[in-house]
């Protein structure tokens, strides 16, 4: 375990968001050097070599995505930074937006240069008032210092950044929903193809990347893709921000090297489980990723391949820790409610199916469940997953299928007992009231 910090390379002293603090950490040096040293294609090449995969949840290689842009288009190219951060359990982009926005801005300048975008939008969810203020302030500072606007230092290259405020909707986090939202429409998703790289924002070629992905670009360009590629494992390179929450002694945002042992991380860095309880379950990558039992996590390391092998997914890196004594059905009800609430309603399987799922889970939790309900749940998910426009439908199914598979005995217990063995409540671990 090394303590290399790329994204969290600052002291959390309330000043790290300023230009002054960022420059003390050698900020914006890369931009000035890069324009002299690299052509746009060189930067795409470095990002490809780094092997960095998108940090927004899908894990698609960033350099490869950039290379999908059409070479012969005469339309403007747009870059969008996805700061919608709506996946339950995730709060890591918030730390960058609030406390290290200049690193993101430098990453956006470099990435825009690489893909020949003149205008980039940072879309931040409307609830993140503080992140919006901090990021806007940093953008203003960057304009004043001449890093943004016409003629960047040393070149005739132009880069503008506009911060766009969302208004509350999980599905807007999907790249096509986000583009509709910037265009001033409802944030419903679009069918693909056409893919955004070909026909995106305002019908123009568009690249969308997550905050964490873009904030990693200055390090990659400064040190070279190869150096970044050597951090972590062969297929999961670099560092990853994890948002750790739930029944854990030290919740927070951690930067870890890909490939670190998960259980060591939980025990040593996060201080283990609250109140010295036993671990009951882990949701390793945000609410949409399948739940794991402790034994699945024993040998798991923090990287895409290992978590997939364990039966789940790294997703957005949101680790939700669940201690013994927690009702898994009640927990699933919370998640089912979320997906039903956030379904945008375009596809019948998602709109109706998420409602049925919620109804059945609620019924089981409240004591009216029947044995056949358990199989009805997994038969409904079969009809939702992969039958919808956007992956929200699939995301709603991941928790259901995995909870049934891993904690079937708890469904049975609820149904046999005719009610919740935990009294329909979450056990209070920390005394708050």
């Amino acid at each position, binding site marked *: 375990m090394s303590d290399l910090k790329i994204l969290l390379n600052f002291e959390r002293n309330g000043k790290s968001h300023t230009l002054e603090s960022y420059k003390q950490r050698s900020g914006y040096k890369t931009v000035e050097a890069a324009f002299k040293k690299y052509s746009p294609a060189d930067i795409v090449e470095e990002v490809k070599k780094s092997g960095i995969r998108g940090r927004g949840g899908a894990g698609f290689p960033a350099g490869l995505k950039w290379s999908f842009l059409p070479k012969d288009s005469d339309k403007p190219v747009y870059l969008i930074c996805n700061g919608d951060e709506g996946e339950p359990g995730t709060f890591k982009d918030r730390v960058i937006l609030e406390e290290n926005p200049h690193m993101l801005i430098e990453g956006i300048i470099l990435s825009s240069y690489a893909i020949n975008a003149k205008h980039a939008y940072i879309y931040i969810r409307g*609830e993140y*008032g503080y992140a919006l203020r901090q990021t806007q302030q940093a953008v203003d500072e960057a304009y004043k210092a001449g890093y943004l606007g016409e003629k960047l230092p040393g070149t005739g290259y132009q880069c503008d950044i506009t911060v766009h405020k969302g208004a509350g909707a999980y599905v807007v986090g999907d790249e096509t929903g986000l583009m509709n939202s910037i265009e001033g429409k409802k944030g419903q998703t679009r069918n693909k193809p056409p893919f955004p790289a070909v026909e995106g924002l305002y019908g123009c070629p568009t690249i969308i990347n997550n905050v964490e992905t873009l904030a990693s670009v200055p390090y990659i360009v400064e040190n070279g893709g190869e150096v970044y590629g050597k951090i972590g494992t062969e297929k999961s390179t670099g560092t990853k921000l994890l948002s*750790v929450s739930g029944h854990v002694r030290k919740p927070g945002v951690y930067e870890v090297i890909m490939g670190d042992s998960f259980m060591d991380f939980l025990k040593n860095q996060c201080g283990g489980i609250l109140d010295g309880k036993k671990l009951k379950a882990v949701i390793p990558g945000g609410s949409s990723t399948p739940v794991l039992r402790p034994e699945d996590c024993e040998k798991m390391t923090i990287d895409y391949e290992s978590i997939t092998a364990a039966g789940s997914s790294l997703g957005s890196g949101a680790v939700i820790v669940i201690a013994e004594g927690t009702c898994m059905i009640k927990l699933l009800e919370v998640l089912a409610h979320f997906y039903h609430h956030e379904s945008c309603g375009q596809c019948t399987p998602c709109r109706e199916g998420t409602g049925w799922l919620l109804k059945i889970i609620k019924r089981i939790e409240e004591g009216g469940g029947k044995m056949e309900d358990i199989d009805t749940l997994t038969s409904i998910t079969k009809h939702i997953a992969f039958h919808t426009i956007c992956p929200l439908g699939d995301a709603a199914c991941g928790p259901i299928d995995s909870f049934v598979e891993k904690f079937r005995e708890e469904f049975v217990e609820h149904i046999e007992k005719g009610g919740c063995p935990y009294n329909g409540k979450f056990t209070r671990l920390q005394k708050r009231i």
Partner: protein
Amino acid sequence: MEFTEAELKQLEQLRTRYPDNRSLTLPCMWMIQKREGFISNEACQLIATELDIPRIWVEEVRSWYSMFTEKEEGKYVLEVCNNISCSLLGSQQIIDYLCDKLNIKVGETTDDGMFTIKTAECLGSCGTGPMMQIGDNYYELLDAEKVDAILEDLRNGKEHAQQPQQFPEYK
């Protein structure tokens, strides 16, 4: 209803940031909601006229996004996150406590028009739950005492200035 001088100036500035007028729909709606507390039909018409788009485009946006409101609510809307991580740490107790204390149910407004209680889906504050959003600020790591102090402050017109997240260390 009109846009103020300052708002119109801000709009001019914003027009240079987007190639299409319609993109100003959300920024305009935020402007109005900040000033009025909600977005009336009249306001939708004002925005539509200003941007030269059909009013229905504005109205559908208002009803689609969860943060825009159509009707006047309490001066302070208390939105308590009740998603996964917060509920594991007792957000339901915070909601019950608030309802008890203010003597209203979720979705209702106090008689003096000061407070509305709502529940919210994940607000990205999972390491510092239970928490609630009031206006543009987050109030995190809530317990009964903190809730009492926040309500008292708001009654006296005192809103807090948000700071970076302070992650707790539990025993």
